């Protein structure tokens, strides 16, 4: 099987799992729920194989271009979701997380993203770069889940307020708490990967750890938005809706740092 086939198979299996998760959310049959998780695991397995094949044929870990890093981001988000599901028994968020996964898989499979293995330009041949990109993406995976649970919070909170019965099982309080937990994890890992490892790499490659390049600045902006989330929450006691809005804004900023800056603003980072 070629790498392309594997990605396509992964895409299809994730799609099936999404349907099962939504079926579970609305019918709440525990068998369907279990099946959804099992199918997601199988999809993850195919995805893992595709990443391994990529790494072997490219001769480096899959972080050097948009296709590789997107594929890894999708993979690690599935992993992060499975961890959160295991800890918080939160199956109702599964379908919504998987919608994002399917969106990313669609982008990966589309002709917009070139899939050739490109030789590494000299600046990219660094272990710090590998650490920088991989750890950043792991952090973003948790922030992505907080993004989904925050949106779900807004939906659930509106339902609860209007007294309507919701078909989703998670209460707004649970969703709010899970968002916070995911941001605590995601923020720590993002700080290490995006800011600290990024600075170390820049120092090794260019001789200065910070140069206010647009991508660096946007990373800092994202970091500040999550700092805002933490402070309004811990010190000022904000919870619920306002927190959810900041969490959503933070992830949109992370997405813009990842995609937007490359396409709209140019800078040192424009080759990744």
């Amino acid at each position: 099987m070629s790498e392309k086939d594997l990605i396509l198979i992964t895409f299809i299996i994730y799609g099936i799992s999404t349907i099962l998760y939504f079926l579970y959310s609305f019918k709440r049959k525990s068998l369907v729920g279990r099946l959804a998780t099992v199918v997601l695991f199988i999809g993850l397995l195919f995805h893992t194989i595709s990443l391994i094949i990529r790494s072997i044929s490219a001769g480096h870990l899959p972080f050097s271009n948009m296709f590789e890093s997107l594929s890894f981001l999708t993979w690690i988000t599935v992993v992060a979701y499975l961890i959160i599901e295991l800890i918080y028994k939160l199956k109702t968020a599964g379908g919504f997380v998987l919608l994002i996964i399917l969106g990313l898989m669609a982008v990966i499979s589309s002709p917009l993203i070139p899939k050739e293995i490109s030789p590494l330009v000299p600046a990219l041949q660094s272990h710090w770069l590998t650490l920088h990109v991989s750890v950043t993406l792991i952090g973003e995976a948790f922030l992505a889940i907080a993004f989904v649970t925050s949106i779900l919070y807004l939906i659930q909170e509106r339902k609860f307020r209007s007294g309507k019965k919701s078909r989703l099982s998670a209460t707004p309080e649970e969703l709010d708490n899970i968002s916070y937990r995911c941001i605590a994890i995601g923020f720590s890992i993002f700080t290490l990967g995006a800011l600290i490892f990024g600075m170390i790499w820049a120092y090794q490659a260019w001789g200065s750890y910070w140069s206010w390049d647009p991508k660096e600045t946007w990373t800092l902006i994202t970091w500040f938005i999550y700092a805002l989330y933490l402070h309004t929450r811990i010190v000022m006691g904000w919870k619920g809706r306002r927190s959810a809005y900041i969490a959503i804004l933070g992830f949109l900023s992370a997405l813009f740092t990842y995609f937007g800056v490359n396409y709209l603003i140019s800078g040192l980072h424009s080759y990744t």
Partner: protein
Amino acid sequence: MKKNFFRSFWKFFSSINLAIILIIVIVIVSIIGTLIPQQLPETEYIHKYGAFSKIIIFLNLNNLYHSFLFIFLITFFSLNIVVCTINRLIPSFKILSSSRIILNEEEKKNFPLKYEFKLKGDFKEKISKIIDVLKKHNYKLKSVEKGENIYFYAQKGILGRFGADIVHLSILLILIGGIIGGIKGYKEHVTILEGGTIKVPHENFYLRVDDFTTEYYPTGHVKDWKSTLTIIENGEEKITKTIEVNHPLTYKGVRFYQSSYGWDWRRALLTINVKERDSQNLVTRVKVRVGEKFSIPNKGLDIYAEAFVPDFVIGEGGQIFSRSNQPNNPAVLLEGRENNKIKFHIWIFAKFPDTHFSSQMDYKFELIDFEAPEYTGIQITKDPGVIFVWIGCTLVMLGLLSSFYIFHRRIWVSLKKSRDFTLVWIGGTSKKGRNQFEKEFKRIVDKLKQGE
């Protein structure tokens, strides 16, 4: 008066609302900085933004991150952090140093988690059991005896209480590192030909480039640039290392980075064919350096190689320049003189040998080869502040982990001896992580009650 000023200063900077506003303003200003290209020549802003360029230049938005506005914001932010941290640290230390082991009834009432129960059996045994159970849960204990009674104070996870402060102070440390780097550090870019030696700017030693190579992938893409460098101090060779991108050389805190490469085209050696115009017969083949001349035998015609550009383009105003340093479209400007009178002045292109700009010539010139000495571009930096930045980064991570995952938990126990039983009072508090603490607290109480 002075005191009043200080008090309002302190009050202003201890506000978390100020922190929130500052964070929002810094975010907005930073976004503006990514939308306006930074540090271009002023004319480009006038060209791009027209009337707005006046505002941009006045507010220094073209060099935003070093502008007065930005430095002002960062200063306020730093003061905010300092004042907030001091305001938080004082009560934290007070709690730690003055936590009493024996609580009065009033204090006992306020505990969110507390139990009171009787235990039968030997009093001494109960004491060792309590010590045992709390130690098993990793608590550190203090105890006092008072008459027949014994009191315990147990705590763990003190670091959790200081996590946020560690983060905040480390952010300051990173800023301080940045300031030290800005004041005491430098960043220079030099280009050196293979075999060349330069004096390192700001330092008392010399840098020699022994070797420079470019490695290619089989596809022709550049794989790496490598320069072998030797540091010479007081006439002695101190250290030799081959550097490449991502692997700089460090000597006495000065770092040497492989940063660019190129050819010194001003000293290019050109090979030119001279042919008769109509018959295309080769008259002569000459090698000439840029700036020098050659003659065509027996004709009294001198030809000067006036200039060479590796990547010829014509700008909007008709001016000629090199788009890059890469030999993408090499061209030489030849000037022919007969008895010191200029006869022609033409550009010859290596890639377009049939382009004729002048038909008044008897000859056709072809640029068939060109070579220039290669140089390596080395970035030389010194940043004495960087060590603070790395320490700060490490501490930020430690602080984040302590703040998010270590909870300061405290438990008080009193044992009162009665005739045939022991009266136990146990109460606990936790800063954050209430639910987990409740579970642990129940488990501890259950263990104490076990065997009754």
